[in-house]
């Protein structure tokens, strides 16, 4: 493998990692605060993608540049409507109950959304590439890349990372979320409305999943079943990083993206195995993930 191919692999890896990060970080955030593994996360990703494509196809005839706001609108709409519904009506009655019930109710939401997606958008692949076509291609060693994939996507991922850091560390709302994460009882005692924090966090996390889907929609065909694959990949990334670790998720996504790209160049047969093998190895050595802190077990 020479430098040319290595450079290409790095570019491929980064653009893949950017999308994976956006989806995984939402999952990780939700777990960090609510202690819930949201199995419906992949469905939110799929819904975000489908709604974004529908909106882009609707606005593209007016002006192709309107498709960018359409992607954002779609992500927020799905985050608020679907995410809000799941938290308010499915998860909220279960706080304080068995963890497995919370996980399973999101599994039920996954099944329902998977089915609804087919009923709403049908089974024919949908494709809406306007946003990607607006940006020019760039050439690296004579190989063409779309700047949407190698510049815009990594940029959005980076902004998300920095934005989330700023939000959690520098704003009052972020401080409240962190406080609830640290110690729910104590923060409730000092007057924080934990329910509201849970709701807001879930909506934000869900919006990231939908944003990941929306940003992926110009590059890929939207098909039934796309959510089921994404959830388990983003879960592998979040778990390998350590659930609730924002920066760790970014680094892990990058690691998995790069490894995957190099594997496709060298030994493509093992591509599917990479994230899961990495996850097993890391969890065996560090069950709380690469960047996760060891938790004190309460007696």
């Amino acid at each position: 493998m020479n430098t040319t191919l290595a450079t290409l692999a790095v570019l491929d890896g980064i653009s893949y990692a950017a999308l994976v990060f956006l989806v995984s970080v939402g999952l990780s955030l939700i777990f960090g605060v609510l202690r819930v593994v949201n199995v419906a996360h992949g469905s939110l990703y799929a819904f975000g993608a489908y709604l974004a494509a529908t909106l882009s196809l609707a606005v593209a005839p007016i002006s192709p540049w309107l498709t960018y706001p359409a992607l954002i609108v779609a992500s927020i709409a799905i985050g608020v409507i679907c995410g809000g519904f799941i938290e308010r009506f499915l998860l909220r009655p279960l706080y304080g109950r068995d963890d497995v019930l919370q996980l399973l109710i999101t599994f039920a939401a996954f099944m329902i959304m998977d089915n609804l997606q087919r009923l709403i958008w049908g089974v024919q692949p949908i494709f809406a590439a306007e946003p990607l076509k607006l940006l020019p291609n760039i050439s690296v060693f004579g190989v063409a890349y779309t700047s949407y994939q190698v510049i815009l996507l990594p940029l959005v991922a980076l902004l998300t990372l920095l934005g989330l850091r700023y939000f959690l560390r520098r704003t009052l709302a972020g401080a409240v979320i962190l406080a609830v994460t640290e110690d729910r009882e104590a923060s409730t005692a000092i007057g924080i409305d934990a329910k509201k924090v849970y709701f807001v966090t879930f909506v934000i996390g869900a919006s990231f999943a939908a944003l990941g889907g929306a940003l992926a929609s110009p590059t890929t065909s939207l098909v039934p079943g796309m959510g089921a694959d994404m959830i388990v990949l983003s879960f592998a990334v979040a778990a390998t990083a350590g659930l609730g670790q924002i920066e760790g998720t970014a680094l892990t996504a990058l690691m998995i993206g790069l490894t995957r790209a190099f594997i496709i160049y060298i030994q493509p047969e093992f591509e599917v195995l990479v994230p899961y093998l990495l996850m097993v190895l890391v969890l065996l050595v560090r069950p709380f993930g690469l960047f996760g802190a060891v938790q004190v077990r309460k007696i």
Partner: protein
Amino acid sequence: MKFLKTALAATAATVLFAGSALAQGKPAEIKVGITTFLSGPASVFGVPAKAAAEMIAEDLNKKGGIGGVPVKLSFVDEGAGGEALVSNYRRMVQDDKVDATFASISSGSCNQLVPVAEDLKVMNFMWDCGAASILETKKYRYNFRTQANGTPEMLAVLLYLLKTKPNFKTIAVVNQDYAWGRESWEIFSTALKAMKPDVQVVAELFPKFGAPDYSTEVSRLLALRPDVVFTTSWGGDLDTLVRQSGQRGLLQQSTFILAIGESSIQRLGKDLPEGLIVGARGDHWFLHPEKKGDAAFKAFNEAFKAKTGAWPIYPVYHMAQAFAALQTAYDKAIKANGGNWPTREQVVDATAGIEFATGFGRPVTLRPEDNQGLEAQLVGVTKTVPGYDFKLLDNMMIFDPKVITNPAGIRSVEWLKTLKPEFVKMDVPTFKQ
């Protein structure tokens, strides 16, 4: 011991029950059970095919049905998973007592259901699945394939390539990682090695079935610069591959072969450039050069377009073939039975070796040795034509199935190995758009 006794009692009960159902009057209806994908990625084939089945049955019943008996359809979703598929298939046959089944789209489903149909002694038409091996490894009585299999389908595409672009040196493959992707490449590459041994295979990529992103594969192919890129992918996977390749100039750099691309042409619209070689899993094309003047063909296509919003694709025509086979078989069986309604076994006897025509393509023959259908193959190259917002096929060749199907009794791969470079020189009619 008690259980064994109950089991024996159960057997006795079933046998008695089956034995009593031999009355010979004209039935109220012919029940046909159809398995097709209504969910999952392959519903891109299954849903149009279901629409076609409903249209065809309605039309057939308006004309008085088969031998004066209307057909009644029931559907089972192949996408519900193997367990649900097998149990629902059994339910259809055992409880609903369907007279014939059409199963299935995926070779995986066929592999599961063909032995079941044989066990349950119900006539089954493999109406769309393509794995050659199913009928090569065993002789069945109740199972027929009313279309070609992967061997002539891939061979036709390869012959087209060798006839139109004989001078390529390197080739790469990007196929979905499942039986069809692997087997179609085995067929294609075996025949390629036999007929043009100097070609170098520079990359064999088998991304996961349903992979959402081929960016890395595209980069690698852009760097490798193969003369030809071969793919048998379909549905959303093919759409993604073609669009991601198109956006980055790979479609222009290499000659692409979309071996079963006919089913994606309309969806891909303007994203599909000119000059790609496209196969159709049979002589299926809504502007079939030998049929496009035919009024019934045009009427069917337009009715289908009005009903579903798209022109028919090959699974639609495969479904039509299954119905044509059913009708031909029943007519023949009724005739052979002196005009009386035939038993199920008589219908099965009549089916072996029939030739039937849908009117939507050339007639198909069911080879009596192995119940394999002999179906012509149409291959063409994409071209922009005013008045259509998607590409049409040009320079179409229609291959004679008797020449490009392996003889009964010889396994496809063994037969393909015996092909010589001269095989390419066969005469094939070419049609302009």
